[in-house]
């Protein structure tokens, strides 16, 4: 997460009112790459999914720490959402569309599927009882390609 480009780090308590704040901060951070409205919308949605998961699943009824790190490498955004909560035992199962451990809360089990659809790459690391780190990346298309270089 270092590299040559720019980077940011945000630490927030896992309260639901911070979900909007987190996605807006990352959208502002990536704005220097001049993303399209659709790219911004995709990024905001993916961030919202990961942060909401930390609020709902990682800490359940308590408030814990969520760390959001982002960096730009060339035209690529790399963003990592980290929590120190209960962790995920079976990551393959968690990634399945419609899998949710909280159907009683009306979760649809689509969070990871949406992240995978809206970002180029999504990787999940977790250890039971120690939290989750979700790393996602997305290349921002150049809107005005230099003639002859494409």
């Amino acid at each position, binding site marked *: 997460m270092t590299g040559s480009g720019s980077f940011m780090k945000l630490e927030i308590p896992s309260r*639901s*009112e911070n*979900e*909007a704040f987190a*996605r807006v901060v990352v959208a502002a951070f990536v704005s220097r790459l001049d993303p399209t*409205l*659709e790219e911004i*919308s*995709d990024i*905001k*949605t993916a961030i*919202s*999914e990961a942060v*909401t998961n930390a*609020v*709902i699943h990682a800490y359940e009824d308590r408030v814990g720490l969520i760390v959001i790190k982002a960096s730009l490498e060339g035209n690529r955004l790399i963003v990592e959402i980290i929590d120190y909560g209960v962790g995920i035992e079976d990551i393959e199962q968690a990634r399945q569309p419609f899998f949710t451990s909280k159907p009683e*809360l*009306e*979760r*649809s089990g*689509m*969070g990871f*599927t*949406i992240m995978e*659809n*809206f970002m180029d790459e999504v990787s999940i690391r977790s250890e039971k009882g120690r939290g989750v780190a979700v790393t996602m990346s997305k290349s921002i298309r150049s809107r005005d390609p230099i003639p002859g270089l494409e």
Partner: protein
Amino acid sequence: MEVDLRQDGENLIVRLTGELDHHSATRLRRTIDRRLDKGEVRNLILNFQQVSFMDSSGVGVILGRYRRVKGRGGKMALCLIPAGILKVLEISGVPKIIPFMESEKQALEAVSQW
């Protein structure tokens, strides 16, 4: 998120304004359910025209209301869905079970066809 409820016969029309995420979903769910529980309406229409953001929490609210309305023999339709939100709904398979209409009028027609 702002929620505007209006009743049209046995139909409840809900106009949503703002961002629909986990934070706003809790109140939206409660507002709609309170009205459905009164038992005066049968069908539910959600108007998304003014919704600027939605994630999977919105999908959960929609499917949860669908189950309730259907359980009481009613119908549900969505209308005026912005492009940015359509993608989340399509990935989640919502169009396979709930019709998406172009206007409130069309949505009213969709829920009143038997």
